[in-house]
């Protein structure tokens, strides 16, 4: 395998050691948990487990209580991209006919599906590459599905994508779709967590979740474990609350943790089983932050600017971006993808009867809102965290993450916030333009400087 450097400007010849992000240590445990989860999943077939491939909302507690193992396609795509191992899957997708402007999550995961099919038909021994993980092998390691569930909110492509997954496996496998209305706001009473539309949508989705449970019972022959569901939702609710408490602590100046640390905590809250280990993990994160506050340790050596990040993650560039912002003394304190997502309204969950609250969280996908709703949340967070500028990730192949962004930027500007856009993508690094990020970030930070002198 060849050595690849991440991109331009990152070579041995780079000048003075730039300030780097002081990342949380506790999140490493999450990395370990996630790795174990995938390693375990890879052997699902050998263990005789039933495997569900799903996309979209975190329906994993339902799948768990149905006695099946769950494989979140997007999450695997993101993982491949973060490990820089997405290429074989994407090439497979391209050969199959996908144009590169198509959602790169979908392209990557469908590429994995094609590779999985290939592997399954060849019955290849997958673990033949000692040491270095072979690129193609990792992308091909997903266990073939027994069922599909699609639960994608906020993006029509998300639903169509599994319509294709279903076809890639010859339309032979059972397939259930949960549909979500966009929280659009036709009526004056509509808004974040309120109004008739919100109530109706919540009920509609909850009804579908009950149907999903019936479908799973029917397909697997397993009796649905309601007690198990209540239990995992109990843990998830606690973990979610700890995460929120920890986020809150970052109101401090300088902030003890940044957006990039929260990105590292997405996978655990998004698809790991709800249990004590999950609670312990977030307790650990919270404790580390508390300690940092006590000891006066901050996320950046010299925090000078406080920014928000809007849009979906650029998985190829997480570490790269973390350092890039650190170099400029810019603390990215909050973001839509981390702060307005992932069981972030735990008070909605009734532990004894969790379905409605779950349905509501699925509807609260950060990409399932009108621009008006978004403004309410994102601009609210900007106030909470003392933000001076918003960095928008214009995600080339993800229309659902970019919907409303330009409108939101205008609304932010009206409130005196600085805004900038940079181009990139969820899982295709060819769309990332370092020069654009660099020059626009510098320009925005300069403007913030100027703004400060005017105000003082």
């Amino acid at each position, binding site marked *: 395998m060849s050595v690849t450097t991440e991109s331009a400007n990152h070579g041995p010849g780079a000048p003075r050691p730039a300030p780097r992000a002081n990342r949380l240590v506790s999140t490493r445990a999450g990395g370990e948990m996630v790795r174990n989860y995938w390693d375990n999943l890879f052997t699902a077939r050998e263990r005789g487990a039933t495997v569900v491939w799903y996309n979209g909302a975190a329906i994993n507690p339902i799948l768990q209580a149905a006695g099946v193992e769950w494989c979140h396609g997007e999450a695997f795509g993101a993982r491949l991209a973060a490990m820089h191992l997405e290429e074989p899957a994407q090439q497979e997708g391209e050969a*199959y*006919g*996908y*144009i590169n*402007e*198509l*959602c790169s999550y*979908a392209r990557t995961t469908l590429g994995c599906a094609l590779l999985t099919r290939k592997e399954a038909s060849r019955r290849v021994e997958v673990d033949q590459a000692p040491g270095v993980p072979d690129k193609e092998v990792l992308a091909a390691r997903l266990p073939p599905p027994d069922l599909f569930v*699609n639960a994608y909110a*906020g*993006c*029509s*492509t998300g*639903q*169509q*994508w*599994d*319509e*294709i997954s*279903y*076809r890639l496996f010859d*339309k032979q496998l059972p*397939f*259930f*779709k949960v*549909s979500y*209305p*966009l929280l*659009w706001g*036709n009526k004056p009473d509509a808004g974040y967590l309120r109004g008739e539309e919100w109530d109706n949508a919540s009920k*509609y989705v909850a*009804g*579908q979740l009950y*149907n999903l449970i019936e479908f799973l019972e029917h397909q697997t022959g397993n009796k649905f474990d309601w007690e198990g569901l209540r239990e995992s939702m109990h843990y998830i609710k606690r973990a979610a609350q700890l995460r929120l408490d920890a986020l809150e602590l970052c109101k401090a100046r300088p902030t003890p943790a940044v957006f990039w640390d929260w990105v590292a905590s997405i996978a655990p809250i998004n698809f790991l089983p709800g249990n004590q280990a999950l609670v312990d993990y977030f307790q650990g994160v919270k404790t580390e932050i508390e300690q940092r506050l006590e000891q006066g340790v901050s996320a950046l050596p010299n925090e000078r600017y406080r920014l928000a990040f809007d849009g979906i993650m650029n998985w190829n560039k997480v570490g790269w971006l973390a350092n890039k912002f650190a170099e400029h003394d810019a603390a990215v304190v909050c973001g839509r993808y981390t702060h307005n997502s992932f069981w972030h309204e735990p008070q909605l969950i009734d532990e004894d009867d969790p379905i409605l609250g779950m349905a509501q969280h699925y509807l609260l996908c950060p990409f399932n809102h*009108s*621009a008006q709703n978004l403004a309410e949340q994102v601009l609210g967070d900007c106030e909470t965290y003392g933000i001076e500028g918003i960095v928008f990730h*214009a995600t*080339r*192949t993800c*229309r*659902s993450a*970019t*919907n*409303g*962004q*330009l*409108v939101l930027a*205008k609304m932010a500007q009206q409130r005196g916030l600085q805004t900038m856009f940079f181009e990139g993508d969820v899982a295709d690094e060819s769309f990332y333009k370092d020069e654009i990020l660099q020059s626009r970030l510098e320009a925005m930070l300069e403007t913030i400087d100027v703004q400060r002198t005017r105000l003082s």
Partner: protein
Amino acid sequence: MEQAAEIEEIIGSLARIAECPSDYAADWESRTGGKVVGILPMNFPAEIVHAAGALPVIVQEDDAAISYGRSLLHEFYCGYTRSLVDQAATGKLACYDGIFLVDHCVALLGAVDAIRFELPDTPVFLAQFTASMDETTTRPQIAGRIGELRQRLEELCGEPITDDAIHRSIAAYNRNRGLLRRVYEMRRAGRIALSGRQMQALVKSAMVMDVEEHSARMARLLSLLEAQPPAPSAKVKLHLSGHFCHAPRPELFDMIESCDVTVVDDDIYTGYRFISTDVPDHADPVEALTGWYFARNNNVPCSTRAQKTVDWESYLGQALENTGAQGVIVLVPKFCEPHMLYYPELRKEFHRRGIPHLLIETEHEGLALEMLKTRVEALVEVIRRPAVIREPA
């Protein structure tokens, strides 16, 4: 001869209306004093707007280069949605008393949200139709949404919409679709030689005109066409597929037809897809319109819907068998997600059936027609090759 001239004249006048729907709408408004409602593709039941006494106009892509709209919608959105937003930003949607939609393609929603921001005084109403056709919960949802539409339109137009009015509108639209389908049948049978540009004008004008007025012109046109001698063609017969929510540029049709090609059929939005299905009979008109939503996708499947039981590719294969088309040109609007997702499935089927095809990505900014022409010619050469290249036996 005179007849031919009248045919030209009718189609020409429809084409002019289709070119500039807002002029027609303004004229209609001043004639009738009714409201003009801008509706968006693809599954909107125009009948309900008509029953409210308003004029439903499907807002079309506009030729103008994108200007102010750039600050509202990213460049990596399909040309149609960028054009919609630009029209809003440049005051071109002022002729509509409201914008209504039922479809929720992710790009379309982004565009409409931007329009709502840009035009705060224009009512914008989304009655989101669930796109998954398979679940039992979908049908009641659709009926509920049509009910909401009805209510909102009553508010806008200031009058209740009666069941009878909806029934009458359904009949008027069914008749109109029937007339258009007749032209399509004649084209498939080689009875007429209307160009792609002309065919598009017929359907596109139906999307923006008062339905009775359009039907009257169509009826006259049909009687003239039926009196014409058959026009069999020795050119290569192609099927045009794709563009399922807005019109391809007519220059594209001209270019394709200039390569010794006759287009015998299509499944594009401003074509057969739009007229494929009548609203079924039902005592409850809302039920009838709900049924139409499902029936349309059964007849001409669309990749924006999620339905396990139908396939676009099998539909296409069948359509080609019916018309004898020798190849397919697939028109994908650049950045159109549902189409990009589905294209490989089409391709697989074309390979399986040995159908030559060509993929063309269209863009709002226009097309490199000269380059594309080479590809169309190559497709024609591929189709023609046994006759041209092989030694006679």
